[in-house]
């Protein structure tokens, strides 16, 4: 069965939304981390269906690393599931989702062409063109993000040092 890229995009999008929904409502941090990983992988598949191969591979790698690290920290720090009434949380979540969905449908009704159009033109751009565009037009942004990453890593190492409050 041949599937068009549009169908693959929507199938992966639905999987990503379901995984995001699960990650939001699951109490266990480990299972929420697994759902987040699944969401990231589905989004990478969405990028691949649109022709953004480099971004898809980057998304897969990063979502796998995020999932592994999240599960590690969830086991290390994560609280045990408490005795909170899950039903109330679920109802609150569904109510908020319905309100947001209603607002979104109202906005999309006003801007119908932008949001409900289903045309799909897959990108045909090579790595070389991306690299040239990045270095020509976005070199400052690249330097800023690199510097930010470096400062973040150093600062995180200092901030998360082993120190306990003196009693």
């Amino acid at each position: 069965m041949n599937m068009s890229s549009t169908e693959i995009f929507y199938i992966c999008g639905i999987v990503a939304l379901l995984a995001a929904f699960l990650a939001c409502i699951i109490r266990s941090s480990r299972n929420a981390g697994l759902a987040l990983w699944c969401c990231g992988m589905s989004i990478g598949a969405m990028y691949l269906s649109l022709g953004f191969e480099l971004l898809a591979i980057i998304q897969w790698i990063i979502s796998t690393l995020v999932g592994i690290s999240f599960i590690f920290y969830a086991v290390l720090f994560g609280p045990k599931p408490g005795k909170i009434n899950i039903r109330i949380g679920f109802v609150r979540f569904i109510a908020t989702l319905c309100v947001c969905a209603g607002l979104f449908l109202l906005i999309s009704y006003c801007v119908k062409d932008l949001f409900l159009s289903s045309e799909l033109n897959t990108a045909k751009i090579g790595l070389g063109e991306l690299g040239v565009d990045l270095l020509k037009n976005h070199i400052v942004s690249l330097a800023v993000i690199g510097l930010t990453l470096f400062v973040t890593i150093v600062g995180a190492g200092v901030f998360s040092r082993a120190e306990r409050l003196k009693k």
Partner: protein
Amino acid sequence: MMLIPMALGMVGLICLLFKRTLLGMIIGIQLLNFGAASAFIVAAVKSSTQATGHIFGFFIVLSGIVQLILLYSAAIRLFYLKKQIGVENIRSLRS
């Protein structure tokens, strides 16, 4: 096509509002980043600026990593000081 990035962003925002631990906030922020990057990618596909959308999605993913590192370090620090990672414990660090 824009429905999916918008819905992802909404789910991330709701998760950020209702989760009470730093790890839960990480999930919300990552979902928001996923939605934002997807929105830029879909907008780039619909317009004729595909390279720009690709680059912007790349930058959003990298900024998501920065936010992740910061929140992990905050969780580690809070756990060392308070033995918990609930958001309400951050306020108690003032005293």
